């Protein structure tokens, strides 16, 4: 089959090389959803306008997300004979200047550059040596931000479809053996060994089987799967086709939430192109293997990411996880037929594992968790973005080296992984290696890959409350512990945050959390208490301060804080007095101002407006002396 692929590949490689060696400048604009939200399409239009205006010819291409969300909009310029330079924070105006300065006047504008492909441009850091690149390894996202997601030729030129072509020359069992040897574990959260899942699907006897890609991605703050679909949809399609061949399925679905319109568009385009090149459809590469792919748009319920709920959703029924005991999805899934369900990133790894071999994959990451992990690094960190790191990397490397440390020079307090199913880990666990098993043992989770860094201005009770609010709304509502338990826990947390917590509440939360974990039907309920239990485990003193002393140490919980003007610092400038929306501040010229706490609504406007050089307004917690 590789023979059949070769002419397609050669043609694609030639095109790719022609592009690399083009005598015209090549401009790449990161135009995934994240880039677009920052104005990538306007930047692109500005570049094209400017080029026209200047009568310059250049090749302008859209690419996916490279992960440096902290510097959106990203524009790469490759001038003939010069290294690729990446520019960050580009606005339409800056884009126009850049075209003028670099393309017309040959000034590379090192002040706007983030990095360059090699160290030739002396003032620009080398891309590979940037602290945030050094620890990253790109497997799942290797093509994101490099290829045009609308061009299958781009993908073919990066060894695309070598995996499928090779797989079609192997027996299904051989493919599964490679997968088992590679140690690939599902990237959807639970880390189930992919080879074993595929094997049980292969063994299931049926006239029809299905392959489903789980691109529901419902966790708040997670956008890894979206980025892969937007930046490199082909890798997922290729992985699914290999899966179809390996388990004996001729039909596949990509279950993607309707809130991902760009991902859906790129996927649709990619499917179309793959069909045109006979890399999808009937008799793929002349092998006799047929595989059709259909997109199914989900309505955006978090619980529909759960395997049995997802299957019901495709069948047009209410997405409610099926309780145990039940047949495995690999034996009785969609329409009662054996079904293989894997995450976007799992499929995206498959083609490369087949092409490059199990040993290559195992050389990355740890023995028990080979390969890479993709995280959406956000929160109080200097460089937020999409990162891909080898499994087993220490948390502190991610936060301090890739993320550039805690923003604003504040103190690190906790890192939350796994979204609403995960937990918060404190500073003394920063040495923890990041993989499925270590995170679970520490009371958190790999989950789908959200990673939120929190500093000392974060209240951990409030954080737990935030995540519980999400699960409360997203539970399917069928089982009592999850439906009512999350509501009960949330009410208790609300009370604690408002200073109405009771001494027995902490033990009650722990006891109830355990019963919810034991009693719930699916992973949603079984993990819903994690944000609460992990914060109690590592930050119990903060809960106690709220309950016993009616204090919020992080100065977040509104009911437990108050504002006060330090008379020694107040310069009686009157700014706060004018700004206070409820006229709670009194004072006169040369008289230090005073806040009437009985009127104050704690909006914090005075705190914000008091000039930094005075800093007379203080935010405090506990009982105000004035109220005593």
């Amino acid at each position, binding site marked *: 089959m590789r023979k059949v692929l070769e002419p397609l590949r050669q043609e694609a490689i030639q095109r790719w090389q022609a592009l690399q060696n083009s005598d015209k400048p090549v401009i790449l604009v990161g135009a995934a959803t994240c880039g677009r939200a920052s104005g990538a399409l306007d930047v692109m239009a500005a570049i094209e306008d400017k080029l026209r205006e200047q009568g310059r010819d250049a090749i302008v291409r859209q690419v996916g997300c490279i992960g440096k969300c902290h510097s959106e909009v990203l524009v790469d310029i490759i001038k003939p004979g010069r290294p690729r330079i990446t520019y960050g924070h580009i606005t339409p105006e800056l884009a126009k200047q850049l075209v003028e300065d670099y393309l017309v006047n040959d000034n590379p504008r090192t002040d706007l550059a983030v990095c360059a492909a090699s160290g030739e441009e002396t003032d620009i850091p080398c891309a590979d040596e940037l602290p945030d690149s050094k620890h990253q390894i790109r497997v799942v996202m290797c093509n994101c931000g490099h290829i045009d997601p609308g061009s299958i030729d781009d993908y073919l030129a990066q060894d695309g479809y070598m995996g499928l072509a090779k797989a079609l020359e192997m027996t299904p069992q051989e493919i599964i053996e490679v997968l088992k040897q590679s140690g690939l574990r599902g990237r959807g959260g639970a880390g189930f060994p992919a080879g074993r899942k595929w094997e049980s699907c292969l063994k299931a006897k049926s006239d029809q089987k299905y392959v489903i890609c789980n691109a529901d991605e419902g966790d708040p703050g997670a956008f890894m799967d979206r980025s892969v679909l937007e930046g490199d949809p082909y890798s997922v399609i290729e992985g699914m086709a290999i899966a179809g061949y390996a388990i004996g399925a001729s039909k596949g679905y990509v279950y993607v939430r309707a809130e991902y319109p760009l991902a859906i568009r790129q996927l649709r385009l990619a499917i179309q192109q793959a069909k045109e090149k006979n890399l999808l459809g009937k008799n793929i590469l002349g092998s006799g293997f047929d595989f059709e792919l259909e997109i199914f748009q989900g309505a955006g*319920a978090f*619980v529909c990411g759960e395997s049995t709920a997802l299957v019901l959703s495709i069948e047009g029924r*209410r997405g*409610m996880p099926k*309780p*145990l*005991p039940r047949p495995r999805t690999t034996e009785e899934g969609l329409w009662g037929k054996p079904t293989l369900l894997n995450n976007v990133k799992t499929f995206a790894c498959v083609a490369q594992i087949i092409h490059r071999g199990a040993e290559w994959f195992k050389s990355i990451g740890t023995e028990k968790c080979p390969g890479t992990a993709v995280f959406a690094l956000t929160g109080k960190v200097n460089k937020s973005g999409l990162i891909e790191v080898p499994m087993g990397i220490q948390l502190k490397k991610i936060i301090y080296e890739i993320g550039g440390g805690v923003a604003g020079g504040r103190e690190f307090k906790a890192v939350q992984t796994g979204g609403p199913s995960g937990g918060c880990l404190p500073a003394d666990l920063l040495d923890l290696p990041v993989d499925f098993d270590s995170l679970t043992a520490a009371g958190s989770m790999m989950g789908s890959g959200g990673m939120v860094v929190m500093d000392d201005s974060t209240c951990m009770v409030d954080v737990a409350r935030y995540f519980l609010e999400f*699960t*409360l*709304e*997203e*539970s*399917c*509502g*069928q*089982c*009592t*512990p999850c*439906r*009512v*338990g*999350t*509501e*009960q826990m949330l*009410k*208790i947390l609300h*009370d604690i945050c408002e200073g109405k917590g*009771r001494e*027995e*509440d902490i033990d*009650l939360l722990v*006891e*109830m959390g*355990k*019963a*919810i974990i*034991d*009693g*719930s*039907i699916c992973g949603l309920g079984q993990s819903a208490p994690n944000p609460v239990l992990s914060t109690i485990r590592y930050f119990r003193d903060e809960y106690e301060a709220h309950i016993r002393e009616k204090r919020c140490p992080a100065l977040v919980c509104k009911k437990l804080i108050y504002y006060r003007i330090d008379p020694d610092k107040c310069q009686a400038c009157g700014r706060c007095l004018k700004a206070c929306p409820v006229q709670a501040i009194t004072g006169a010229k040369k008289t230090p101002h005073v806040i009437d706490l009985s009127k104050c609504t704690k909006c914090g406007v005075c705190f914000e407006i008091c000039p930094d050089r005075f800093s007379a307004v203080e935010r405090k917690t506990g009982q105000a002396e004035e109220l005593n």
Partner: protein
Amino acid sequence: MVTLYVDDLAVSVEKGSTILDAARKLGIYIPTLCYHPDLTTFGGCRVCMVEANGKLVTACRAPVEEGMVVRTDSSAARQVQRTVVELTLSNHNGDCLTCVKDSRCKLQEVANYVGITPERMAMLRSAVPEVEVDESNPFFKLDRTRCILCGICVRTCQEINGVAAIDFGFRGHKTTVVTIGNKGLAESRCESCGECLERCPTGALARKDYEQPSREVKSVCPYCGVGCGIYLGVRGDRVVSVRGDKDSPVNSGQLCVKGRFGYHFINHPDRLTAPLIKRDGVFVEASWDEALDLVAARFLETAKHYGPDALAGISSARCTTEENYLFQKLLRFLGTNNIDHCARL
């Protein structure tokens, strides 16, 4: 047969039985809320959790295994059972005295079994939903503040009646039993058969005019020719309720809207209790002899003048077979075959 041990007692049950079946055979109580023997198992309420070979499982779904060791009273199982009941109560309108299911309520039974203390309940925050009672149906109401989302009504409507007028709607803590488009029951596909409220474990689905009978009388529903077995609930000389007779081979306890709710005519003041004869354009009460003499005289007169085929008789589906037999005998005696029946009209 499979032999297993439930709370140290050995029991043999058929292969494919559940742990709940085995426990019940031994007379061991396992609390259940969403389980109903007439319906497919759901497994949503989680109150029947027991420990089987060291793992927590729902007794209503988990199949028995040879040599399985089941503990219904292990501390882990008890903890989940109790938490589930406490949580359910925190979410339930507990004004029992105004509830028609008081003392017949499954939730009360289960709460009594697992042991609910006022101290524990005081630790929880009340989470009773604030929703209007759906009173749109003339016969019964849906009070969602008492609903425990066991899904028994949903399954009943789908599996017993095949109507599927209701289902779960919305998500998370807003999950509730809804009709299509979340309209009132009266505007839905609901046929008011009332099968759901017979099975609802709480007072969420309940008759509007419930009166507890002082005794029950076995009878047959008089509405149509099917002949469903019923129990009439009686207080003194008044019929105050009807329920289906589970042992009746005709209906296995099921009833239709008329059979279940249409019994008020029995004690209705407008009900005819004596024959009426129209005199000078007004109906006047008469004795049976008077009335029958009049009818007989008119029949004979009509037959004499216009021939017997000028007569016709229509009988009622509410008559018994014997009564219908006598009716056609009467008309043939009068010389006509013009006999029909309201069920044909």
